[in-house]
């Protein structure tokens, strides 16, 4: 089986046309991934950092940790549901590589569901310990939090493996040969030894640390307006330090990922014209958030909070775009989304777009109404 040409394992284009042009599907895949990556980053790195601060931090650090851990059930709920759209559009556009890749590693891929259930209930167990104004986690609640943090980090590793497997079509024959039974796939393939998997996983962890730092600013300036001036001052300083750690981590692991695991051909494309501006902007974009933190000194304000979180969303979005471009380049020798027939589903698409915009606006309206009424009632 080692002699199999990987290209031969790619299915022919589907008899069922794409419901929209590839650019639209990939655009929504990127938008969806960006929206997912923000809460995902908070789950991936935020629980761990918050628990560390809860254990070893000072007064303000513990206060932030308590705030963060209380928010975590809501963050996880949105993180999971916001993951639906990128997965949906990945399956539409890349069915010919997504399904074989995940089937090859089916056992660990499906394990995500079990891990996620335990991780999410662990988050609730932990957060319940902070209800009713309690500020400190007991040992068992803390343990639940640590277990959840480790489970989310493990889930991140499996995702990194799956995305790598999807783009690494060349490795399929070997994985298949190692794990097949009468030509069928046993789902036992493992590629955690692939440096690209580890580098990518660690790089996303670095990006997640930066997202946590931006969230600290957003939380202090926007959600935590009742917190003291000292707390909001501390929040800015801590966010800056954490952001630097995340940026250094991101730079180190991103360099390993880029220069240590990309093929020369991919590197040539990403560092050649016309893609080099995108690559450089993606690599340097964290500097934008850092610069904003530097030029807006003092206690975090509402406007600083909004600017910083939006800037971090831009950083995440640029990573999502570069990730998409690289994925397309890696898959180009094996398949192109543009090879598929297209038959626009105009009216369902328009309804979705209208609902998407209206839905986001409506959620914003509900949150605003809740917050303003809560303020009025408390003031009364």
């Amino acid at each position, binding site marked *: *089986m*080692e002699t*199999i040409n990987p290209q*031969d*394992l*790619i*299915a022919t284009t*589907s*008899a*069922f*046309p*794409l*419901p929209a042009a590839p650019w639209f599907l990939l655009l929504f895949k990127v938008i969806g991934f960006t929206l997912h990556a923000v809460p995902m980053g908070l789950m991936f790195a935020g629980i761990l950092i918050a628990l560390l601060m809860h254990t070893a931090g000072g007064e303000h650090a513990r206060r932030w940790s308590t705030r963060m851990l209380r928010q975590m059930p*809501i963050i996880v*709920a949105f993180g*999971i*549901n916001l*993951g*639906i759209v990128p997965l*949906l559009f990945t*399956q*539409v556009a890349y*069915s*010919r590589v997504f*399904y*074989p890749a*995940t*089937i090859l590693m*089916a056992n660990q*891929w*499906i394990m*995500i*569901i079990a891990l*996620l*259930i335990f991780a*999410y*209930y662990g988050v609730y167990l932990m957060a319940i310990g902070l209800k009713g104004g309690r500020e400190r986690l007991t040992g068992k609640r803390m343990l639940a939090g640590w277990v959840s943090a480790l489970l989310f980090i493990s889930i991140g590793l499996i995702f990194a493996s799956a995305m790598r497997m999807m783009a690494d079509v060349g490795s399929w*024959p070997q994985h*298949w040969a190692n794990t*097949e039974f*009468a*030509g*069928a*796939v046993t*789902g036992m393939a493992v590629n955690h030894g692939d440096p690209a998997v580890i580098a990518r996983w660690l790089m996303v962890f670095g990006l997640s640390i930066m997202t946590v730092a931006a969230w600290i600013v957003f939380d202090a300036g926007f959600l935590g307006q009742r917190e003291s001036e000292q707390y909001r001052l501390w929040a800015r300083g801590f966010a800056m330090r954490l952001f630097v750690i995340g940026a250094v981590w991101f730079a180190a692991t991103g360099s390993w990922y880029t220069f240590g695991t990309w093929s020369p051909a991919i590197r040539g494309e990403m560092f050649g014209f016309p893609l080099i501006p995108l690559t450089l902007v993606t690599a340097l974009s964290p500097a934008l958030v850092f610069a904003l933190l530097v030029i807006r000194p003092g206690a975090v304000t509402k406007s600083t909070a909004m600017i910083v979180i939006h800037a971090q969303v831009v950083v995440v979005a640029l990573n999502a775009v570069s990730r998409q471009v690289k994925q397309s380049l890696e898959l180009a020798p094996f398949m192109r989304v543009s090879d598929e*027939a297209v038959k626009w589903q105009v009216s*369902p*698409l328009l*309804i*979705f777009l209208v609902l*998407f915009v209206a*839905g986001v606006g*409506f959620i914003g309206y*509900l*949150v605003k*109404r*809740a917050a303003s*009424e*809560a303020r009025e*009632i408390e003031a009364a």
Partner: protein
Amino acid sequence: MHYPWWYVPHLTSPMLIAFIATIHVLVSHYAVGGGLFLAVEVGHAHRRGDRDYLAYLKQHAWFFILITVVFGAITGVGIWWTIGLASPLATEVLIRIFVFGWAMEYVFFLIEIAAAFLFFYYWDRVRPGTHTLFGWVYAIAAWISLVLITGITGFMLNSGYLRGAQPADIGFWQAFFNPQFIPQVLARTGGSLLLASMYVFFHASIWVKSPELKEKIGKRSARPALLGAILILVGGVGWFINLPEYSIITLQKAPALNIFMALLFAVTVAVFVMLYLGPYRNPAWMTPGFGILFLLFGFAAVTTGEFVREAARKPFIVHNVVLSNQVLAAELPQMQVRGLLESGPWSRALVQARHPEAVDDRGKVLDSTLAALPAEDRIALGAVVFQQACNDCHAIEQGLSAMSHLVIGWPDERVHDVARRPERYQHFMPPFPGTDEEARLLAEWMISIRPDPPGDMWFGDEPRTVAAPAGEEE
């Protein structure tokens, strides 16, 4: 055949879908019905200024969030995971037809989550009207999610797809408003109301101590449950009327389904009787024992109903579009000429790598080359054919509908004939998606795993060894 096949020993991979989907259904229906219950009851309690009832409803809302937002959401994602692994072709087809339906559902999921958290975390912190509004926003968004997903599951059971139509001709709306759509929306809405009431009885029977409050909860939640029971009946009749003809025959023909249908009927009747006699007429019966038993009966009714609904779909995953062995109905005739091993990229690559003598100069797998293979290779390729064509529903030697058990006592000719034309023996079997020679490979493999008939059965002595009755000797 377009994708690699995931082999799960003993169980078969599609059973994982059934397992996760069944668990999910028990929670997702509660997510809809429970939302409606909370919206109606919170509005009622606010209007009456009933603090005790509001306190109970808050407690129930927390239970509701822990069950639906966590377990319901993740098992819903779990269905996505498993269908992509165990039924990739059907998933690809459905996702290309319905991607914007799922995308719309995603928007409603987000609204649901936001409304659910606002409803709970802003309890007593917003005006009663706003609080009730949050409840209704959740309830309506959850019900629309149910409507959207039902359009897709209804299409799988009766696509309304015309014979000879091309895949590109299947439009979103035509597929969405399939003959099963309205009946299933009614039945699922009813099921949601009924199941939600059972969760309420269960929860209240354990956590509520006040007899007055118990009586109130019992009375008030029994009403939507009775409405749910009526909707289930109406929707169930519509579901049966709009089944394809082959599904109706399947339900009547398969012994296991006869038993499940009888069980479904009996359990459903028991639930209706328990509902009427218990919470509606005698709310004082709401003890933990009754609450647990009632919920378990509800689970039994729902899971049995789901099993019957799924089984009635065979030999299709998507009616008239995708067969249960991951073959497009439109591609079947071509595969029967071209060959199963040649048609699938993974099976073709396997033969080229492992059995190069079975391919011609152009790398094609041909009947003539397969016929010339030694017996050992033919059996090995028969196992490959089995995985691709049969393992969706049949384990090998032990497990779910194991092939070795099915062929016990069959003469070779029958094995060959069933392998070639399974649909002639059971109409809910898909036609064999390969050539005559590939059917022979499959049959030879089936014969190779066929065990001897069990040796511990006695049907009287062999006729020749039995002494003839007195007076009849020659």
